[in-house]
């Protein structure tokens, strides 16, 4: 049986991120049909509320999809041993801003469409994710400077 290592872990992350992208795209395609499907289902969705919330959901999906694709690019770069680079720092910063965008959209949608608590919980999760990404970005940026110093120490 092949041993678990960093490369395999990165490959697993790439597969998981790819899966999440597929789920996001599928969700985007199926969202308009949710009220119709759930009309007689166990979880009933108010079609009027859903129609009002749909633009916010699509905005969140677009930002989430952008973050996932950027994350996929970062993971592929890591797989090719390009970890501490300015490009990766920029990508992580972009992912962080996607999280901030989702959080803001959720806050606005919460007050605009009702169901404030549910939207605020999502906003909190997205904001927390943005904060973690920002910290990771700062760590990678510091490591990049240290690596450059090491590379240019003769």
């Amino acid at each position, binding site marked *: 049986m092949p041993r678990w290592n960093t490369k395999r872990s990165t490959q697993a992350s790439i597969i998981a991120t790819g899966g999440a992208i597929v789920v996001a795209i599928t969700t985007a395609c199926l969202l308009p049909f949710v009220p119709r499907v759930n009309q007689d289902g166990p979880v009933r969705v108010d079609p009027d509320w859903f129609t009002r919330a749909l633009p916010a959901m699509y905005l969140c999906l677009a930002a989430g999809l952008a973050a996932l694709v950027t994350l996929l690019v970062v993971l592929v770069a890591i797989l090719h041993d390009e970890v501490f680079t300015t490009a990766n720092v920029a990508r992580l910063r972009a992912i962080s801003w996607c999280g901030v965008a989702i959080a803001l959209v959720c806050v606005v949608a919460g007050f605009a469409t009702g169901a404030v608590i549910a939207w605020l919980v999502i906003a909190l999760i997205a904001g927390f994710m943005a904060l973690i990404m920002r910290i990771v970005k700062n760590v990678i940026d510091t490591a990049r400077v240290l690596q450059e110093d090491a590379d240019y120490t*003769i």
Partner: protein
Amino acid sequence: MPITVNLDVVMARRRVGVGELAERVGITPANLSILKNDKARAIRFSTLEALCRELGCQPGDLLSYDEEETNDEH
């Protein structure tokens, strides 16, 4: 950076090439070029020692401090 590496000047005076000096010092020609072109961030004492030994000079001959450049950075 206010510290300037004057390796190119010393090498020209001693009439020694990058390849030959790199081999004598025990570093790659690429790394010696980084040092010669003043692109290095830091230099190890062991490298400085080897350069001084092979070029017959003092560390002060290879490095200089320019106060004006420090002021320019601020």
